[in-house]
């Protein structure tokens, strides 16, 4: 066959090295990875809220949110929960071993709608992984945002991700961090209760000058969005990120379809207004 490979094959993943990894909590691991091709590493640009497809040859390929911020280029950070085939193999990898990635994919948070406004970030459980990206993005570009609030709830202190990092953030003056766990223990220094309870600690909000993002387990969305609505934040300024099964990441394989939309291309970030039209939303 004499066919010229003119097109770049978007399914072909590129090699990346695991630079560092450590356990966040049991079965949840943090990975720093970097493209082996340095040019690629430095030119890889993305938006908070986007994801990559990560391959382990022979095992498969899965989507993972980028947890680092584009404002700190070169290294990509992921937070991974061990749940199945690929994640199990990923947990067997050591520093310096190679994985393969392609992306970034998805739309990411709509930054243009967020600048010059107050930003409320609400994370539940694993949802903090993608939100960590927008969190640091906002902190690195602090002048682009007005007030920044970060609300994060986990089930127990032992399931609270990025504990050291986030506890240190509390000392910063340019961000208000509110943490809670559903069930606390003696050492837990912060609030106890579901994440919606933290809303009462927020100062006065001007809804026309505020945007909100929320990521968490499906059950959480309804309650958190109710709180945003109580604050009168416009529905199209509330952003959330959805998860669906994916095999390609680029709108071909069909698995992530929600009615006529593909989570991987039209999402994973949707505004609450978008989702109101879905009949299928859990």
């Amino acid at each position: 066959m004499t066919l010229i490979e003119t097109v770049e094959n978007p399914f072909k993943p590129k090699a990346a090295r695991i630079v560092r990894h450590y356990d966040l909590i049991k079965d949840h691991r943090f990975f720093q990875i970097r493209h082996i091709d340095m040019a690629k590493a430095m030119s890889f640009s993305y938006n908070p809220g986007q994801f990559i497809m990560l391959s382990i040859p022979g095992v498969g390929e899965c989507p993972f949110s980028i947890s680092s911020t584009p404002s700190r280029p070169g290294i990509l950070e992921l937070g991974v929960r061990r749940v199945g085939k690929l994640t199990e193999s990923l947990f067997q990898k050591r520093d310096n071993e190679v994985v393969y990635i392609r992306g970034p994919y998805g739309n990411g948070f709509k930054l243009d709608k967020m600048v010059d406004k107050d930003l409320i970030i609400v994370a539940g459980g694993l949802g903090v992984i993608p939100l960590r990206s927008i969190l640091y993005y906002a902190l690195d570009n602090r002048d682009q945002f007005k007030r920044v609030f970060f609300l994060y709830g986990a089930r127990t202190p032992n399931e609270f991700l990025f504990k050291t990092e986030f506890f240190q953030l509390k000392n910063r003056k340019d961000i208000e961090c509110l943490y809670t766990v559903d069930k606390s223990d003696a050492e837990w220094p912060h609030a106890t209760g579901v994440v919606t309870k933290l809303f009462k600690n927020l100062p006065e909000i001007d809804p026309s000058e505020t945007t909100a993002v929320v990521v968490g387990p499906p059950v959480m969305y309804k309650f958190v969005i109710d709180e945003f609505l109580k604050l009168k934040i416009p529905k199209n300024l509330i952003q959330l990120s959805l998860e669906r099964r994916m095999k390609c990441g680029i709108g071909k394989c069909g698995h992530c379809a929600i009615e006529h939309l593909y989570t991987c291309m039209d999402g994973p970030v949707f505004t609450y207004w978008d989702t109101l039209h879905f009949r299928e939303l859990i």
Partner: protein
Amino acid sequence: MIEVGNNKLTVVKPKVGIYGFTGCAGDQLLIIHTEEEILNLFNSVDIRSFVMASSNPTEEELDVAFIEGSISTEEEREHILKIRKRAKILVAIGNCAVSGGLQSMFTGDNTFEKRMNKVYGDVEFLTNPLEAKPVDAFVVVDYYLPGCPISAPQAFALISRLIHGAIPEPYPHPVCHECKLNENRCLLLDKITCIGPLTAGGCGSACPNHGLPCVGCWGPNEDGNFEHHLELLESFGKTREEIRRLVRGYGGHKILKFIDKGGK
């Protein structure tokens, strides 16, 4: 298990045992028969025990034990418990190991003693016969490779994953999937009692490829619509009893729960 050296990534050969219990030995034979892969297999794993193909087994710690056949005697029960203790991963291969096989089709009918007597009369055996049961009736099974016999592509996809320390991929689709990919006309349209939709896929739709209805040898497709499929076949003029008989053939007692509950 991965070793990096000379820039070549190779995995350490896993220690493997292949054991035959009560069955037709078809699954082991299928492995032996797969000429393209059998030499690769012998090269890439450390076969400690494969009595059907090789003498002088060493029975010690194993990374993977493949178990063929149902457990049908007291001695086999003891043997499987011992293998489980020394195997990190245990895989049930073939319908007999996965579902009990044809020999378990009467499970639940309490006819075993009678049938045993009918065939052998009153004889004391060296080891006590048991009514055939699948391997997971006695020990924890990590992975299943259904089929009567197993299919080579499925078997080697699973084995090669285990060699590389990866988790095998399940295939939870009915026979109809491959049947359509093989471009067969659906037999149900001609009112032929095919049980492909109730049967786990993986065989490559061996029967419908020959214009013959699926006999169900991969065991139940857990997502099957048992309730309606039975009704559909009844509308072709079969009695419910006939259909149950057909469906039970390879599912052993495992399938009963699907038929009776109308699915998972």
